């Protein structure tokens, strides 16, 4: 077993354990932190596949931004696990078959027939001197430019929709105008009153 294979098994083992702990952890904050660990290990696996741009993008986007906001929200929530767990097993009749169905589907798709070494031969080794980032950029902005632009427009629409959905004009909203604050001069705020001294 060479070094890369050993690294693959270590990263995968941590990834699987972390992913399991995400759903089994009692504390929601722990669950989020295990999810962060899972993302980190997944990015390590991508690095082993020489996809360094995607691996680092996973860390920047998910670990560095998305999960931080997740953590932020989860920490603020007052989650009572006892109440959440009430009637948990009552949903088994619905959840159980769905879980079985998903496992069957995953096995069907990811089995050796469609994902084995024969169906998916190793890609040709990357040419030295061609950067991963550059190759990805070229592909996105030439061959796949329309799907890429479409995806970005959809994201923009979602972004605006999220803002609009939360936009409510509040009457008691107090606003500051920074330009006004900066433009303030001494004479607007201070009045010098001259008083004769009150000596006897």
């Amino acid at each position: 077993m060479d070094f890369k294979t050993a690294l693959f098994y270590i990263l995968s083992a941590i990834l699987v354990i972390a992913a399991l702990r995400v759903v089994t952890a009692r504390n929601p904050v722990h669950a989020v932190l295990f999810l962060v660990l899972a993302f980190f290990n997944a990015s390590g696996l991508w690095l082993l596949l020489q996809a360094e741009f995607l691996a680092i993008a996973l860390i920047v986007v998910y670990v560095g931004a998305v999960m931080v906001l997740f953590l932020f929200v989860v920490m603020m929530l007052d989650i009572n696990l006892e109440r959440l767990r009430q009637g948990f097993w009552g949903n088994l009749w619905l959840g159980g078959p769905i879980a079985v169905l998903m496992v069957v589907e995953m096995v069907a798709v990811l089995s050796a027939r469609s994902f084995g070494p024969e169906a998916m031969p190793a890609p040709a080794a990357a040419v030295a001197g061609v950067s991963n980032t550059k190759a990805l950029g070229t592909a996105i902005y030439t061959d796949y430019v329309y799907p890429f632009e479409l995806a970005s427009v959809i994201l923009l629409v979602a972004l605006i929709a999220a803002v609009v959905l939360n936009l409510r004009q509040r009457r008691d909203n107090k606003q500051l105008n920074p330009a006004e604050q900066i433009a303030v001069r001494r004479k607007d705020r201070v009045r010098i009153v001259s008083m004769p001294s009150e000596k006897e």
Partner: protein
Amino acid sequence: MENAVLQFFQWFWNLFGLWDALWAVVKPVWPLVWVLMKIVAIILPLMLSVAYLTFWERKIIGWMQVRIGPNRVGPWGLLQPIADGMKLFFKEVLVPTGANKALFFVGPVMAIAPALAAWSVVPFFDGGALANIDAGLFYVLAMTSMGIYGVIIAGWASNSKYPFLGAMRASAQMVSYEIAMGMALVCVLMVSNSLNLSDIVRAQGRGWFADHGAGFLSWNWIPLLPMFVVYFISGVAETNRAPFDVVEGESEIVAGHMVEFSGMAFAMFFLAEYANMILVATLTSVLFLGGWLSPVGFLPDGFHWLAVKISFFLFLFLWFRATFPRYRYDQIMRLGWKVFVPLTLVWIVVIGTWMVTPWNIFK
């Protein structure tokens, strides 16, 4: 370099006649040993710089406030940081009763680990980076974005109100300024056509001015002046330094996420903060001020130029702290989202347009 070090070891151990026996053991793991030696060669000076940065900070703020600053321990107070370090080292690490024990100690580790990991791609001189990787700039961005977990985890695990408020403030502030920072870096990678930090420095050594012996006019800071300013200010905000230090604002929330920490656990946060300051100063020098390049043609390039540039930016950090009052929270958010992000977006378009016109200077 590697051969010279090997030769030195060979000479040294041959004095005792032990070289052959030693090399038989070390040879299979030599690449690992060599990398470890390089890591130590980066971390040790970094830790020393952190120690003396705290000293320098206290001295400079002292002089700016017409005081003397630390002058009791050693000649001119020069041993003060060592004494401080010893004191922190021997102090007891207290764990609050209601704290989450495991995460309480994960917090400081998560603060310092990314602060050190980011150094692996920084080029100190031509070819002088621990890992000369293609996506270096992106890697630095990823590592600095990880640093926030230290603050959040520490704030939450302390199970105390001030640390929690500090963690909340930190997560909002650091995520906001990361966006402006990333956008500013997009401009840099556009003009240098590379994500490799060494290539970014080399790209700044080309141009009409560099050919005529005035290299400092060819560096990125002139065509990217707004981005240079945005990047450095975002860097100050990212490291939670004054005037953006609401995360640990003494007058409001005592020391934010660090309130419950003592001894070495506290020292870890301290080390991380100063290591991050040096990192931001280094990156600003590398990305905008030409890294190891000499400003004028008749002087040789080298690490000393990078050191001068880093010192300049570190001085700015300290100068800001002595000069500006702390920003209010809504002002921080406004500056990040309503000023920096639109400015960077506009400048990306400006640079993009510039690069397709015949006046493109970035070739």
